[in-house]
């Protein structure tokens, strides 16, 4: 075992996988070659866990389990059958695992290494630097679903709500809402080019592309909301905007700092920079009645409540705060409280604002 671990370390230290003296161990073009030890998935997980631990990689065991399971076609190690765990791996599988694990040694997030992750029961493609959805956001989606399905007065849309997702990232919020609300349509915007194309790709993989409109948009730009006018007022706005306080940015783990787009995380000095633009946008585009659901930092509910009180012109009220599974105030329900002054409601094009141009 120690020998094998030593071999792996030698390989990883970059002495050239191809030409190195140990290259034969992983050569897929000679599969008949007797393999050193005929390692099983369980043994490999243990070896890589030890290596990760030694190199100070966080979640060492989880990381090696996810990587090995992924190469063997399973989502989690826990869901693998006993046979799959004990049978010897092929040289090709060993090579794959080794390659993926070497990324982990560089602190790449597991979700990027696997190239996919699950959210609300959907498997989504993940690609750097697009923000990786966090489990808290699954709860945000749950809340929206709860309000839409149990309290129809929140959404008075006929035929299903039109939802605006601000900062769609990988498309996690948009696509999970679309898959759970078969009548709904979504307008997804993001300023990042990579996010726009990843959302598009995920929509196609999940066969949801017909009910989503993906628009590149920077909501911080003056008058950006006018670009969304052609799609009409919306029933719901949902957003997980960048909300990290600037001073916290430096303390983020290397996985986040070196791989995820800071623009999806950095919310400015008080984490409010993007949030206030989302609120302004919601005030412009929400129907009356209409609701905005936000994920925020636990310090934000108070800040946002105060800010909204100082801006009665937006006609938005903070009506509910919900805690996440760790008990932190994390989600906000903001409701439109009447027609907004100066909102050109009459200017909406036509009586069928909900139709999405193909």
């Amino acid at each position, binding site marked *: 075992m120690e020998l094998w671990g030593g071999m792996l370390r030698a390989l990883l230290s970059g002495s050239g996988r191809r030409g190195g003296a140990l290259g034969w161990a992983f050569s897929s073009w000679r599969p008949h070659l007797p393999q050193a030890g005929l390692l099983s998935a369980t043994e490999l997980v243990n070896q890589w866990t030890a290596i990760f631990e030694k190199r100070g990689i966080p979640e060492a065991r989880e990381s090696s389990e996810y990587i090995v399971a992924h190469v063997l076609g399973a989502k989690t190690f826990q*869901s693998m059958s*006993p046979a799959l765990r004990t049978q010897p791996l092929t040289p090709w599988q060993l090579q794959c695992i080794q390659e993926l694990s070497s990324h982990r040694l560089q602190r790449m*997030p597991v979700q990027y290494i696997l190239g996919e992750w699950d959210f609300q029961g959907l498997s989504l493609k993940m690609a750097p630097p697009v923000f990786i959805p966090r489990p808290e956001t699954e709860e945000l989606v749950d809340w929206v679903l709860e309000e839409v399905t149990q309290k129809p007065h929140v959404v008075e849309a006929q035929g299903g709500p039109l939802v605006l997702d601000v900062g769609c990232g990988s498309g996690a919020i948009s696509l999970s809402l679309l898959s759970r609300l078969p009548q709904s349509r979504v307008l997804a915007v993001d300023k990042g080019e990579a996010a726009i194309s990843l959302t598009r790709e995920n929509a196609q993989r999940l066969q949801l592309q017909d009910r989503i409109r993906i628009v590149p948009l920077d909501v911080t730009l003056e008058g950006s909301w006018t670009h969304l006018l052609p799609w009409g007022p919306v029933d719901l706005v949902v957003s997980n905007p960048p909300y990290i306080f600037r001073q916290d940015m430096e303390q983020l783990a290397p996985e986040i700092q070196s791989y995820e787009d800071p623009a999806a995380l950095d919310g400015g000095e008080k984490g409010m920079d993007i949030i206030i633009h989302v609120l302004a946008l919601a005030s412009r585009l929400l129907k009356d009645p209409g609701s905005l659901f936000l*994920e925020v930092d636990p310090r934000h509910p108070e800040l946002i409540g105060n800010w909204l009180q100082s801006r009665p012109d937006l006609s938005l009220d903070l009506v509910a705060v919900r805690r996440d599974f*760790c008990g932190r105030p994390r989600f906000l329900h903001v409701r439109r409280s009447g027609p907004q002054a100066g909102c050109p409601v009459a200017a909406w094009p036509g009586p069928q604002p909900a139709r999405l141009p193909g």
Partner: protein
Amino acid sequence: MRSHLLRSAARCLRARPAVAPARRHLSCRSPPLEELFARGGPLRTFLERQARSESPLQVGGPELVAVAKLLSEKEQELRETEHLLHDDNEDLRKLAENEITSCQKAIAQLKHQIILLLVPSEETDENDLILEVTAGVGGQEAMLFTSEMFDMYQQYAAFKRWHFETLEYFPSEIGGLRHASASLGGPEAYKHMKFEGGVHRVQRVPKTEKQGRIHTSTMTVAILPQPTEINLVINPKDLRIDTKRASGAGGQHVNTTDSAVRIVHLPTGVVSECQQERSQLKNKEMAMKKLRAKLYSMHLEEETSKRYNARKIQIGSKGRSEKIRTYNFPQNRVTDHRINKSLHDLETFMQGEYLLDELVQSLKDYADYESLVDVISKKL
């Protein structure tokens, strides 16, 4: 006289399709059920009392009285028609033969209906369920057998077109299974699976045995009905939900992949965990499912333990400690000790298809018989 009988025979023939169709397919009923219907037997007495009674019993109610009446009419008809078998007229004899066959069919259906009306259906019969398998005595061999049993039930679910979702899985080093659980759902899933709970014994030469000796090992199956939203209400305040994100800022500040969820029901101390999925929300849903099933079966056991005490076929934790079945590989036989029934061809049986289904059906019939006896002996 003869013409009268013929007319009545003809009427019966015409009337036959009007007999209410059986609610489930007619299976080969086990003999004890047939015996209950014997003339002068306890079930007959019971039915006659029901017919005379001013206020018929809750079970079955007026429908039972009506069906019982139909049954005795049919039987009367059958007896009368039987005389015609000795008639000189050949045409009449043929007609009588046909008549008798159809009468017998109708009688079988009516008896079946009576059983359905009398056997109380359990509150949980239509529910989904949680299947738990746990290796018992016998070390690695018991774990290997546990793994085979888990596969068998997974295949049985596919055979019955039920959904099957593994909730947890703890394998042993050499490919066996220490413990696993799964969620099953579909038409009458619990009604079928509830008889599988108990200790299953295997007798064979283990793969790990070098000297060819036969070992005896065991594994345990538990079947927990999954409560509906109405069956069981849990106060969210009674739950503690543990995740790996409990410390630190959470949200966008951290990116963890450990999605395991552990739920503790504080008043009872019952714990449920899940780490089968990459999505934490999905793990929480599955852990919750398991927790609800555990709490519900605890609740049910309190209610039903008295009712079932005397029966051979035990449901719930009482049955869990009882050796219910032996899988004897050298003799290629599986024997269910509760009804003393043996089936051969173990390999086919372990595929979880029609042979397992046949045994389950026999158990269901026997359980029906037992609860029928319960019902009539109580009211005599």
